[in-house]
């Protein structure tokens, strides 16, 4: 193999003076001083932002595609509970189809109950009570329920008879009233209306 003279070398033939700190002008120094200040700045800003939006409770509620929630400024944090969803084309409970809002809207009868939803809500409440009874036998703390407090904090609300109502902002009051009356008849005493946070509130 023929011997060639060496070709261009980094920091020698190509000095990269803006990157390398060549100590004392000696040609053999290969230390590279990268300016990581912008990187650290960016990371600090990103971490601060992510810490600000961090939610310890996680994602409790997922909004359906095409469902626009109403906006509100006074609000509480969400809780985990069974979800009734009133979309433009369907009323669902725990992702099971219950009724059609358009049918309800066009229904002239004075009927205020949504039968399928009522039966499902009653079954859900009874199942909850059976499980709660089993739990309360082992854990006396579970027996505590401050439902009767005049103004309980959201975290103190009794889980019995608690449901989340997630409805499109364009839902007519007729549909909402029927679902609401059905929940009331099924002994759901506290309903949490899911809303979009808007501006400063409580």
């Amino acid at each position, binding site marked *: 193999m023929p011997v060639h003279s060496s070709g261009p070398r980094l920091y020698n033939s190509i000095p990269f003076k803006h990157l390398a700190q060549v100590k004392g002008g000696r040609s053999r120094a290969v230390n590279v001083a990268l300016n990581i200040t912008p990187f*650290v700045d960016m990371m600090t800003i990103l971490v601060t932002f*992510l810490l600000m939006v961090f939610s310890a409770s996680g994602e409790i509620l997922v909004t359906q595609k095409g469902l626009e929630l109403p906006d509100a400024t006074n609000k509480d944090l969400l809780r985990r509970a069974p979800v009734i969803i009133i979309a433009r084309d369907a009323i669902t409970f725990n992702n099971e189809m219950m009724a059609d809002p358009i049918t309800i809207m066009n229904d002239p009868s004075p009927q205020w109950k949504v039968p399928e939803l009522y039966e499902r809500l009653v079954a859900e409440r009874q199942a909850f009570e059976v499980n709660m009874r089993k739990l309360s036998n082992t854990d006396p703390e579970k027996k505590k329920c401050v439902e009767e407090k005049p103004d309980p904090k959201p975290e103190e609300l009794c889980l019995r008879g608690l449901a989340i*109502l997630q409805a499109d902002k364009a839902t007519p009051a007729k549909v909402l009233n029927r679902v609401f009356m059905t929940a009331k008849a099924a002994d759901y005493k506290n309903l949490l209306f899911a809303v979009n946070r808007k501006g400063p509130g409580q």
Partner: protein
Amino acid sequence: MGAAVGTDDKKSVNVDLNIVPFIDLMSCLTAFLLVTAVWTNLAQIKIKPKGQGQPSAAEPNPQEWVKASILITDNDIHVGLSRVQEIVRVPKDKNDYNWQVVRENLDRFKKSSFLQAPNPFANAIEIGAEDKVLYQAIVTAMDTSLAVGFKDVGLSAPNELSTKFTR
């Protein structure tokens, strides 16, 4: 975080901070926070089903006390107090409900002598809406009531409101 002071020159006062652990920590934290971030900005308004059809032994009789009510119709909003039948009609401003005037009236009612102790319904308000009213208007009415200080917000059918509004 390690630091090397004045490395090779006795007169040097430069300090080399070892920021590698800091960057490591930041990278881990960023990755964790990005994975666990919740981007949906949802909250809730607590509502109780109200109305005359829900008798409760524990609750005082609403017929004996003054209670605030709101009725939302297609064209206006009625704000009123039961028993004394003090009612204010707030018509729509162009196509939008005039929430500012509603709020002022609610504020006035809240400060009135009717809604003070010992009235057990001093912080309670019922909201009813006619069939074609949109959900956003109901939520805004609840939001306005909460902002004024009515902590116990209830939704009921328009014909079950304590205050009898004439439309």
